[in-house]
């Protein structure tokens, strides 16, 4: 049988899915054990027990200095920034995408600009963002917004232009004006695409969030990671990384569920 036609059985499927994780963990813990045997204070590859102790300190005990539960405190700060950034970016991206997808007259001015703007790496122009938005919460949220809005807008514009011409003609024959066309025909179709685009942009959004927190902050998951990195506290960093991964996965799952609930008809067309 050709390789391309071979499918794993149910048991093998599970085994193959778990295999990379098992290998990664095995490589990690054998490396960790080797280093800890050489130097029991080594901080680069902490053992599972050391990480568990760090989680205990961060999540379930008051911090000695500030009296806060730092993991939850950091998580709340980060999720607030991320939620705000994604919310603003989603609204702005949807509006821009519709405007430039629906109206050729407006598209002429907007589309080339979005194409260029989406290529600017926001981290490279940070000093300017500082001056314009200050150093507080606003600049962190704006870094996320500036980073992902143009890409969301371009994606939605593209999707809007893929709506069959016939639908526009038919709706107009039935008496729709520009406003009803946008509201009743385009918006529902694009909202569903918005959720898919947002899911794809979750990774970049986290990246921008953590970069913003690394630069100047007093709390946040990215802040903590970059702070404790100064003294190589990998026992704190690795659980934080796992926690971020879990949160990101949960957000992705949540967006998928919302999409499925609100636009059940879209599932078949999903990429």
């Amino acid at each position, binding site marked *: 049988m050709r390789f391309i036609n071979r499918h794993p059985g149910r048991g093998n499927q599970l085994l193959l899915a778990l295999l990379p994780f098992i290998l990664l963990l095995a490589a990690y813990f054998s490396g960790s054990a080797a280093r800890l045997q050489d130097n029991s204070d080594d901080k680069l590859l902490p053992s599972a027990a050391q990480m568990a102790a760090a989680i205990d300190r961060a999540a379930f005990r008051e911090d000695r200095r500030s009296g806060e539960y730092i993991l939850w405190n950091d998580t709340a700060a980060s999720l607030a920034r991320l939620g705000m950034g994604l919310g603003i970016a989603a609204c702005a991206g949807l509006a821009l995408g519709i405007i430039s997808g629906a109206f050729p007259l407006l598209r002429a001015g907007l589309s080339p600009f979005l194409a260029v703007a989406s290529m600017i790496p926001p981290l490279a122009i940070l000093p300017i963002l500082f001056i314009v938005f200050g150093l507080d919460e606003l600049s962190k949220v704006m870094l996320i917004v500036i980073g992902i809005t143009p890409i969301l807008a371009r994606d939605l514009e593209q999707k809007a232009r893929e709506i069959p011409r016939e639908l526009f003609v038919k709706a107009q024959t039935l008496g729709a004006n520009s406003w009803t066309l946008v509201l009743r025909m385009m918006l529902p179709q694009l909202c569903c695409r918005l959720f898919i685009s947002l899911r794809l942009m979750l990774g970049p959004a986290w990246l921008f969030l953590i970069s913003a927190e690394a630069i100047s*902050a007093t709390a946040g998951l990215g802040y903590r990671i970059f702070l404790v990195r100064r003294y190589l506290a990998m026992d704190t960093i690795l659980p934080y990384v796992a926690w971020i991964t879990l949160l990101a996965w949960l957000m992705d799952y949540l967006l998928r569920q919302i999409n499925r609930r609100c636009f059940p008809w879209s599932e078949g067309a999903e990429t």
Partner: protein
Amino acid sequence: MQNNRLSRLAARVTTLCAIGCLVAFSLPAVGESKKSFNVCWTIYAGWVPWGYVDSSGIIDKWARKYGIDIRITQINDVGEALNQYAAGKFDACSMTNMDALIVPVVGGVDTTALVVGSYSDGGDGVVIKGKGKTLKDLKGMSVYLPELTVSHYLLARGLETAGLRERDVKVVNTSDADLVAAYDTGNVLAAVAWNPQLMTLKARPDTMEIFNSHQIPGEIIDIMVANTRVLKDNPALGKALTGAWYEVMAMIKAGNAEALEAMAKSSGTDLASYRAQLKNTHLFHTPQENLVFVTSPDLIKTMRRVAQFSFEKGLLGEGAKNAEAIGMSFPGGVTLGDKKRILFRFDDAFIRMAIKGGL
């Protein structure tokens, strides 16, 4: 066929495991006697001479004398240099006394202060926007600085002299690379920085320096540290680095224009600006001056302070019950902290060799 498939799967798993193990065990273990060594340094006025030691070929001359090979690498990020040294990628590296204590030493890497090159003498400072301000004006303000670094230590020492405590101000962690850009925004009214950023900040209009390391002389020390185990097995490394360092120090003392020009260039500035930075960096030009500093009881007092500060910030490790958790040794058999766990050593053996001309 099912069997065949399973056995192939098993073979693949074995291969992957083997690769995993290879990756895991290729992480370095510290060796015994060896011939080639890796040294790192980062940009700071007091460490720039290490760049010249390398680029001028002086290090090769000294390494050849002892039949070894020394590779000097510049690392852009101070924190990364500390981590790489602590992880065993480098045998020696430039760092401050506080960084050495809280990263490699707390990480169990027995470390020797090989060349105690200089101390900050105004090279670290607290700046504030406005006129006629003093440290007392910091009360209730946000102060932007790289947390848990010597800047943080400087602020704590400054507040102490003004009768304030750290909880009287709000410390906002800001990376040293972004500090200048951050300072130019309206939000930031006070910051702590080191050179060359400090010079840039001081040059801003309506800005004054209210405290600097000149007021705590000898407390922020710039050292070339070496892994004690490697150094013990290979004294040649210590001899070569010490010899090369004092050769360059003699050139600086003599005002060798060519050498200073090269150092200014490698720190990304011009000769005048580099000379200004050096003014705020107390270099020990001769091994004699260095010996006086290393054998002075003030050094022990400083390290006790630094250990106390680090302990209060939770940087001596979670197992630490007090600031004495880590042992340090000083010339003449004096120790500080846990005698059974001496991990940070100030040693005058190589300095004495240099004085005697035994290098």
